[in-house]
């Protein structure tokens, strides 16, 4: 059986291999996880018994097919959770990522897949409008001066004010200013409203022709 510490190691090794194209070693993995090297080595030996990886000369971690799959799965769960927490629940990215690190070990594969599907296709009206579109447009993705129609407002709880100001599905708005870090000012019903980036990126829109 793999433990959550074990999953962290597989995830880190996978990330090193796939993203950074470097050979994973016990030291690098420990560095990524901010863990003690000896502790990582001990866990890795356990994983070796389970057939997830082999510890080679010079502490190099050689992932087996099974280990690679498990690692990728954990990465996927992490990404899905992080997106869910930040885009739909409106948490800040950093906090969402930390939280995802904890949750990723406990959710089932099915939950992760369903969450992923849920995020990819917004609820409600959006489902019809967005069908067939590859990437969803959010308020943070459009240049200044664009006229838009709101498709979905993904943040819930604590954001009723958006609806009170007129930012709700079906309304037309215009992006007036946008800063480098994606804080935006939108004009809605003749009033200018400033929004933080995490809110802007959870408001799905479509361009008005």
């Amino acid at each position: 059986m793999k433990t959550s510490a074990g999953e962290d190691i597989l995830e880190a090794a996978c990330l090193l291999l796939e993203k950074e194209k470097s050979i994973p070693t016990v030291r690098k993995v420990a560095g990524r996880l901010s863990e003690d090297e000896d502790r990582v080595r001990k866990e890795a030996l356990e994983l070796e018994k389970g057939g997830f990886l082999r510890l080679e000369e010079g502490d190099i971690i050689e992932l087996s097919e099974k280990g690679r799959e498990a690692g990728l799965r954990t990465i996927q769960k992490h990404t899905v959770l992080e997106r869910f927490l930040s885009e739909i629940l409106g948490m800040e990215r950093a906090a969402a990522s930390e939280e995802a690190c904890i949750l990723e070990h406990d959710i089932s594969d099915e939950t992760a897949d369903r969450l992923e599907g849920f995020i990819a296709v917004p609820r409600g009206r959006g489902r019809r409008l967005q069908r067939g579109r590859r990437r969803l447009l959010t308020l943070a993705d459009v240049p200044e001066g664009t006229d838009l129609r709101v498709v979905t407002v993904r943040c819930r709880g604590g954001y009723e004010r958006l609806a009170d100001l007129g930012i709700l599905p079906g309304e037309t708005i215009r992006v007036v200013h946008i800063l480098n870090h994606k804080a935006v000012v939108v004009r809605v019903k003749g009033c200018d409203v400033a929004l933080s980036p995490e809110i802007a990126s959870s408001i799905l829109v479509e361009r008005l022709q």
Partner: protein
Amino acid sequence: MKIGLIGNPNVGKSLIFHQLTGIGVEVSNYPGTTVDLFSGTLCYRKERIDLVDLPGIYSLEGKSPEEEIVRNFITGEEVEGLVAVLDATHLERNLYLLLQVAEYKKPLVVVLNMMDEAEKRGIEIDREKLSSIIGTEVIPVTATQGKNVGEIIPAILFRSRTPDITIPYDLHIEAAIRTLVSVHGISRVVALQALQGMVDDPGIAESAGTLAREIEEVHRMSVQQIIAGNRHRCARVIAEKVIRKREEVTAGSLDTLLTSRVWGPVILCAVLAAILLSVFSIGSYLEEFLVGSFESLIVQPFLSLGLEPLPEQIGLAILLALQAGLGIAFPFIFTFYIFISILEDSGYLTRAAFLADSTMHRLGMHGQGIIPLILGFGCNVPAIMGLRLLRTRRERVIASFLVSMIPCSARTVIIAGIVAVFVGFGAALSIYVITFGLIILTGIVLSRITPGERYGMILELSPLRVPEPGNVLAKSWYRIREFLVIAMPLLVAASIVLGLLQYIGFFSLFAELVAPFSETILGLPGYAASALLFGILRKEMALETLVILSGTADLASVLTAGQIYVFAVVSVLFIPCISTIAVLVKVVGARITFLVSLYTLILGICIGALINILVV
């Protein structure tokens, strides 16, 4: 008779309140100036009216504190009428709230404020039509010029009517309302609130919850969103009927510049720095003039009278208090208030919030948090009151630490009044650098360790306006009056007590007691340490007490430059003044207040000791 002024934020409610009652309340050009109920009385033809200025809100069904305050107010029994203030330049958005207010079926009068700006923009509103749609009187008002403000009271007294407009909701919502009303015998308003999960009664909440879930299932939108959508649609229909001319608003070129990616932040820093520097130079110019003339015209002649030692000691104490208060504190505080008022009225603060959003995220808040931080430069007390505007407790806690550390105008008095004068301009600025550095560090650390939820910024930008000199002066005057009527008498009284205590030798005794501590750790003589303690009463009193205890306004003759510097740093950093502590308790509670005080105390002493070791 109790009447409330209700409306969106920043539509001029407080200004109308002020003109009707004559009471000086805060009127500023940013949303959320008023955060609490404020009531005043007036008489009209022998009728006594309690007028209540309410915080501005966007909805009556939200969960934020100010929305709850207003909701509790208007559902109260004793409220006999409401004056709904609308901004004529943003009629459609303002109608959204009016439609909600109408549902409460209270006698109502509608005020269309900002008629001057509406005219300037070529917006024409058909008042008769609006009046017949809503079913109440509609009064056009320009509050800044006092135009038609006098009509409001007679209208609410004699001609107020219950509005007879109902919002047509979505079929499913209407059906659910009917079910709830007939099953539970509640009113339409309560049924709507129940559908939005705002009713505590478990029976009603359960059936409303079931209905709401069914509706959400069909619409695939939350009930709140459906209801908000219906209200917005209704508001738009009315707006289209009554607005005759409507031109597309375009952002002015100034606004584009102020919020541009490149120049925005540069301008923000420049504005803040310019304010600090002007206060410094104007303040010290005035100080030099006032203190100099006071010395030569009053103090010297008094000393040459050659009185008995006791009367001379007491007389001198009074004169020194007046000199320090009027000559040193007044110029800086007053100049500061003028600049802060200009900033508040220009509408720039909301743009500052937008620009500072990402920086403020790092300090654990969002952009709006910069508004209390900037106001804190004037005085920490109103700034901390303004913290109620932040939506989560987490932000309020972090902000309460940071605002209490902001060098307010009283602390500027100490920095500018003694460090800039006796040590040097660079040294004075370095105190600001140290303080800002500590504020940023504190913010970064607190944002890591403070638990609680985070929300982003949703902030309406207020229109840019040229501040009215009258309002700026009046506002600065109200604020400085507090200093003159509360602080000055306190200062003079304390000064007399200090003079007496000094005469009987109490201070040399106390000074001897604390001297070993203050001399070894901070390198300060005992009397300077006693002066620091008085700084807790009011910050600028640290300086004034120091002047009194050392017996001269020329501090350089009794203290070294290093000692003056350490004294200033410690008094700027350590423990907020007593009034700040009092509002902190009200806004964030006793525990956090204690932590803030303890933290700043330790910080002040540590930094003071560090500078003493390193530099002096």
